[in-house]
């Protein structure tokens, strides 16, 4: 690591931060890059500004005043540089601590930890040590996730190869990505497809090889009012959520009741051993038959017919030859 470079970056930052006016480029050169040739100075200064900006330091470019004509000057406004005061209630601090445990993605998990460090530096305590019990579940294993995430931040076009569901042909795509959305456990990118001239959604796990940002940042605007998750849900294959009508004996099926949209008590049931209640649920059909089967004779499926048949079929198989024909 170049300690000298760290010093130069930090000195540049301090110089631009403490001046109320734009600092002329020539003065910056004299004070910080005195030993460098003009070429070397130009190169180094460009790169140093870029690196500070990539840390989030807002370096402003402006004209000094008429006196200096076209020589540019630079400054950092303290109010744009500094994190404003934040007061967190204990429960808010707890939930922000939890947020550092959400991402199962090394770089973004680290970014949330950096947020907490900044809050700590501000004197806002967020205790994250007690939270090792929480399991991160927001994963982003798709190798191209980072590229799309960055491209969305920067508004850069992205090029990639793609295979559509159920097809083997690889097509190359150019996209202005509007956003990424997670839906049924998978990440999708939504945007304007430059070849097709229309909005499109792509599943990241179907992107072949690597995705590349092309062209400059700020290349396009996201259409106002775009809700990325809605576009993804509209264009992506239909979800497997299913409306089901289930009868449960009074007091039975406690977890089902917790999820139910509607509960009607005292309905006519398949037998008179107990009272029955009618529950209407709307949820993923995955595993629903398994769960309902677990309640045995305490629940009864009314609708849909496919679910009802599946339950009857599976119960009929019990005691059959080696687990039935299914």
């Amino acid at each position, binding site marked *: 690591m170049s*300690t000298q470079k*760290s*010093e130069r970056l*930090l*000195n540049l*930052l*301090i110089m631009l931060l*403490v001046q109320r006016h734009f600092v002329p480029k020539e003065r910056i050169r004299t004070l910080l890059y005195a030993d460098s040739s003009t070429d070397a100075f130009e190169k180094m200064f460009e790169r140093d500004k*870029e*690196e500070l900006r*990539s*840390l*989030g330091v*807002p370096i402003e470019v402006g004209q000094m005043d008429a006196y200096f004509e076209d020589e540019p000057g630079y400054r950092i406004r303290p109010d744009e*540089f500094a*994190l404003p005061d934040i007061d*967190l209630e204990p429960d*808010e601090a*707890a*939930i*922000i601590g*939890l*947020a*550092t445990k*959400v991402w199962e993605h090394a770089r*973004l998990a680290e*970014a*949330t930890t*950096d*947020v907490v*460090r*900044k809050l700590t*530096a*501000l004197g806002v305590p967020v205790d994250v040590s*007690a939270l090792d*019990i929480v*399991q991160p*579940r*927001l994963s982003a294993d798709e190798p191209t996730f980072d590229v799309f995430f960055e491209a*969305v*931040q920067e*508004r850069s076009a992205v090029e990639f190869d793609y295979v559509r569901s159920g097809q083997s042909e690889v097509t190359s795509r150019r996209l202005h990505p509007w*956003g*990424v*959305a997670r839906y049924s456990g998978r990440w999708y990118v939504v945007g304007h497809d430059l070849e097709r001239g229309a909005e499109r959604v792509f599943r990241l796990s179907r992107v072949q090889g690597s995705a590349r940002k092309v062209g400059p940042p700020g290349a396009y605007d996201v259409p106002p009012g775009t809700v*990325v998750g809605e576009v993804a849900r509209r264009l992506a294959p239909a979800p497997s959520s299913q409306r089901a009508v289930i009868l449960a004996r009074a007091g039975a099926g406690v977890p089902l009741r917790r999820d139910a949209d509607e509960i009607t008590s005292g309905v006519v049931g398949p037998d008179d051993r107990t009272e029955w209640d009618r529950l209407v649920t709307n949820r993923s059909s995955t595993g629903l038959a*398994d*769960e309902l089967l*677990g*309640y*045995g*004779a305490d629940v009864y499926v009314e609708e849909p017919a496919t679910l009802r048949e599946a339950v009857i079929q*599976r*119960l009929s*198989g*019990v*005691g059959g030859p*080696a*687990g039935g024909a*299914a």
Partner: protein
Amino acid sequence: MSPTVPGAKDQVARLLTLVPFLHTHGQVRIDEAARALGVDEEQLVKDLMVLLMCGLPGGYPDDLIDVDLDALEAGVIRVSNADYLARPLRLTPTEASAIIVALRALRNGAKDETREVVDRALSKLEAAAAEGSAATQIDPGLNAADADQALLAVRLRGAVDRQRQVRLTYYVPARDEESERIVDPHRLLTHRGLTYLDAWCHSAEAPRLFRLDRVAEAVVLDTPVSVPDATARDLGDSLFTSSSDTTPVTLRLQPQAHWVTDYYSVDDIRAQDDGSLEVDLQVADERWLTRLLLRLAPYAEVIAPASYGDAFTAAAQDALRLYR
């Protein structure tokens, strides 16, 4: 994301957090600062050496940031003459997006009371974020985080630390019923991706493990625990399986039911020629087994003991009769 010399850039980033941290906290021990900021102690001292060479433009000794080297020798950091770096840098677009998306993931699918907390935290952080965060363009969807359970874990951890009793409303799947009980919480622990409260149950008058995802409600009481955590329990697999009152059971599992061996603790697995598995496990509660087998129907059967197999077949026929 410039590929050039990340070392210097990262060092500047650390310093931009370290200096305000010291400004807020006054003099701080090296190990404390290192822990709070997640930096290696040796690195932290190196970072401070850079600070010595930085300051106001002008080049007079008074312009430079002052790091008290004598104090540093004694393990204490004391920095002065750096008031212009008293505040940390605004959140970067990536930091803002990462934390805001994480918070929204916590919000989705949470109870109203949790949502309200998340919303307050979100509005405060959004105000602090740099312009250009694309957080609204990243949608974490549903089921990406379980805030209710996480907050429950935090509350129960607090009860453990303060040694307070807890009134639990707990769902017992084997009986498909919720019941209320007073417990003395001893610790939280995680096993195979599930979080448990290890506690003394005053209803059972015995130590019990409670799965957090089955806790319907938990009220931390003012009363102190009455049964101390005397037994340092072995936190290995044994805690979750064999007790003296279990019955050894042998099942045959078709491929559709093989997941059982990943999910529950089993004593032995024997692969069969037809692709099924014969599995031995310890069962503490026959009702639990019957529910599991119904759930797996018809892909699991009982080899032994026969009475358990009969009970399961009867339960399946009972259920089937509803449709006839």
